[in-house]
């Protein structure tokens, strides 16, 4: 279970949120919504152990999360709003590098499967700089097929995606929840997720 109590964060001298509590149970997702600049990304970075909150604490499987906590680095998959792609490398090389970095060994066939799942199989050999924004986003999502982690932290996964891409994201998250996974998703778009499994958190 992912839990946070009494979280507060600020950027510069501006207080983004305070007294924030949340709880994510196995098989359920937390949708974080809110206008631009309300702290969605900051919250996700705190949950991922990248940033330290000003107040409060986060607990993952009853362990208090400290920055770069080892168990969280093994359990959580963080997809930030930066795609972590190298322009010089091809789509397939980018995916292989990110998957290996997460400690997962994937065969070429598995990489190809993941690329075709996000409809990029025809562009596997294309340098990432030649991909469109939506395709870059899809390439980032292909990781989710190969890196099996219980906790997904997704920052705006549907940005720049077309209708089919958004449906794909929703299906992926729903499948993950079905398997008992956890997800925290910051999003502006309405994702078609099973309502029984989804809780919302609106930041203001």
């Amino acid at each position, binding site marked *: 279970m992912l839990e946070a109590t009494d979280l507060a964060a600020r950027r510069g001298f501006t207080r983004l949120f305070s007294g924030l509590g949340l709880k994510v149970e196995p098989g359920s997702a937390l949708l974080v919504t809110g206008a631009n600049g309300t702290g969605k990304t900051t919250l996700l970075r705190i949950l991922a152990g990248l940033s330290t909150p000003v107040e409060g604490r986060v607990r993952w499987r009853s362990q208090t999360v400290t920055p770069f906590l080892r168990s969280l680095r093994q359990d959580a998959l963080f997809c930030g709003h930066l795609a972590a792609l*190298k322009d010089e*490398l091809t789509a397939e090389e980018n995916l292989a590098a990110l998957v290996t970095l997460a*400690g997962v060994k994937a065969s070429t066939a598995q990489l190809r499967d993941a690329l075709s799942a996000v409809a990029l199989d025809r562009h596997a050999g294309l340098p990432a700089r030649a991909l469109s924004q939506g395709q870059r986003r899809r390439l980032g999502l292909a990781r989710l097929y190969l890196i099996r982690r219980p906790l997904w932290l997704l920052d705006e996964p549907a940005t720049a995606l077309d209708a089919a891409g958004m449906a794909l994201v929703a299906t992926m998250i729903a499948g993950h929840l079905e398997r008992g996974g956890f997800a925290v998703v910051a999003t502006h778009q309405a994702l078609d997720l099973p309502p029984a499994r989804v809780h919302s958190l609106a930041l203001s």
Partner: protein
Amino acid sequence: MQDDGAWSGVLWALERDLRLAMRSRTELGVQLLFYVIVVSLFPLATTPEKSVLSLMGPGVLWVAALLASLLSLPRLFASDYADGTLEQIALSPYPLPALVSGKIIAHWLTTGLPVVVLAPILGQQYALDGEALAVLAATLLLGTPILSLLGAIGAALTLGLRGSGSLLALLVLPLCVPVPIFGAGAVDAVHAGLGAAANLSLLGAGLLMAIVGAPLAASAAVRIALD
């Protein structure tokens, strides 16, 4: 010792950074050309007098090596920081110092090693004899990795700052001062008949200390930059 994937981490970063370097070969070529030009300018701008040139040769070759290393340092972490890869690196289950070490090794292989190889050839312009050139190459072999290691700390500390390139130079140059002093001093010591053993030992000791300390310090700085 418990296997926490440290070697896999080193290899991952090394392989990826070398591959990226191979994809942008022109940039590497420009840096080497910079080194060649700086070293070649001194004999042209000062004097063709052999005795003067052989006296200042080792110092010039060393200072140029320092500048060439500095030229490529800002990119060590900055591009990974800008495109989000550094977040993924810091969140990887592999130990961060291992990944940082891999990046530093790749930086040395692409910028330090070519300088070591070129130095004996460029040294011909300074009328240095065979023994002096060999000693000079040995000091560069021991010293240029120190520049990459210390430079990595500076590159990580200046991540995300405005004007980080010039700040990086101000931060790293004073730290690196002993390296060219011992490096160029080794050649003088040989000329004076003292042998280069003392200077080479000091450089070796410096290298060992930097290998132990720099990846840890750079990792800590990377984590601070991401917070």
